[in-house]
């Protein structure tokens, strides 16, 4: 135990580890805030679809030779999020079919571009890093860290400021519209935030594992808590703890960061599931 603590103390001295922990916590917090809304609106899988779009955009940015790819990736992901999340319009391809189409399409185009116009000698390494995160959270530049912090702050501010509207839209969009809420504008806002969270979370867990970061904390919290506010708060706390624990375990044991965080999320879900069962048993 003391050996682990010594190791942790040693690694925490590295600026890159401190940066990774800060950014990781912020990303986990943001993704969990949106997770509750997305799960309740039956959009759990949208994170997966959008992350593949972000992967495609990242490949385009690499091919074009952009040194800072985040603005382009953010813009493309936001546009896709708006297209996927707009509701009540006469789209010919709807729901999960649209998500699946955009998801696999972007993934295929991204991978094709990376192979046809390779920017480094290690295409498989680049793809692997983008899909699974690898150690990208530990290798962020100062600019990326700053951008992550700003985006996280914006996401949190928007969520807190528009909490009531998000709540209304999550549970009954028709009622919200009937009471004068500009639902399309708020849906657009949610889409933009989701896009920002996806782009942020790609750094932490990679594009294939983003959904886990969005849905696990929300689903775990829903096993135990029943109100929107308590589920959101619990989800945020749980997500931060899991991300921190996952990152520390991965740093100490040398396992991949993204998958370690997701495994911790799975364990937390199992624990909350059991607690939920016990609670129901006690009530009966």
């Amino acid at each position: 135990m003391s050996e682990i603590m010594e190791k942790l103390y040693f690694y925490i001295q590295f600026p890159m580890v401190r940066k990774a922990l800060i950014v990781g916590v912020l990303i986990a917090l943001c993704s969990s805030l949106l997770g509750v809304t997305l799960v309740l609106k039956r959009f759990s899988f949208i994170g997966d679809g959008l992350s593949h779009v972000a992967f495609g955009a990242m490949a385009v940015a690499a091919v074009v030779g952009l040194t800072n790819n985040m603005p382009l990736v953010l813009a493309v992901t936001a546009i896709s999020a708006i297209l996927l999340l707009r509701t009540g319009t006469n789209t010919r391809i709807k729901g999960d079919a649209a998500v699946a189409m955009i998801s696999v399409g972007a993934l295929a185009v991204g991978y094709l571009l990376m192979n046809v116009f390779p920017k480094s000698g290690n295409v498989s390494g680049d793809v692997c890093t983008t899909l699974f995160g690898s150690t990208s959270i530990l290798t962020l530049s100062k600019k990326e860290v700053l951008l992550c912090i700003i985006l996280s702050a914006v996401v949190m501010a928007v969520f807190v400021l528009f909490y009531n509207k998000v709540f209304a839209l999550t549970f009954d969009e028709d009622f919200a519209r009937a009471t004068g809420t500009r639902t399309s504008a708020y849906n657009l806002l949610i889409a933009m935030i989701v896009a920002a969270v996806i782009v942020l979370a790609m750094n932490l867990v990679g594009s294939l594992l983003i959904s886990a970061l969005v849905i696990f904390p929300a689903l775990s919290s829903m096993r135990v808590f029943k109100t929107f506010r308590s589920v959101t708060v619990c989800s945020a706390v749980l997500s931060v703890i899991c991300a921190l624990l996952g990152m520390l375990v991965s740093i100490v044991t040398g396992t991949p960061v993204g998958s370690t965080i997701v495994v911790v999320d799975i364990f937390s879900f199992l624990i909350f599931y059991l607690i939920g069962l016990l609670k129901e048993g006690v009530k009966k």
Partner: protein
Amino acid sequence: MKRILCLSAAAALVVALCSCSAVDNGKASRSGAKTVNDVLNEAQSGDSGKTDNSEGEFVGDGEKSIADIKCDIDLTKMESNMVTATVNDFYINPENYIGKIIKAHGTFGVYEMPGRNYYLCVMTDPTGCCSPSVEFLLKNERKYPGEYPAMDTEITVIGEFETYFEDGKKYCQLKDALIN
């Protein structure tokens, strides 16, 4: 009012977290930064006895083994995640490492280019798809391939971190390196 309080708390959290990251870059690796020559001179009792042994080691007779040479950054004692991150940081913030003595363990690799070969210590990352590597330049020039280890042989290398420019691009390497 509640929202303003929440926002203020969030802002304070972000500022507090940011201030943590601003702490002294490279602090972890700044203890006793002697140059590699100082260390190697301490370690070597004389170059006259420096011979390759039959197992292909480059640490000559009368020298301390690489394991005994003190270094500023010992990649051999880090987990693979941290090795990848640290090697990546060599390229992002090379100024933090110039003059530091660095030790790495991996497999021997070489890029054979017209006019110059680039000798590498190639490590593996946790996902196994990215292979961080450090270039090194041996203290005493040797002929390739005869006097170098075979490709993919496990090696430990120690040397002084430096940057150099080639075709207008910045690269980094471990100079005055020893391997075994």
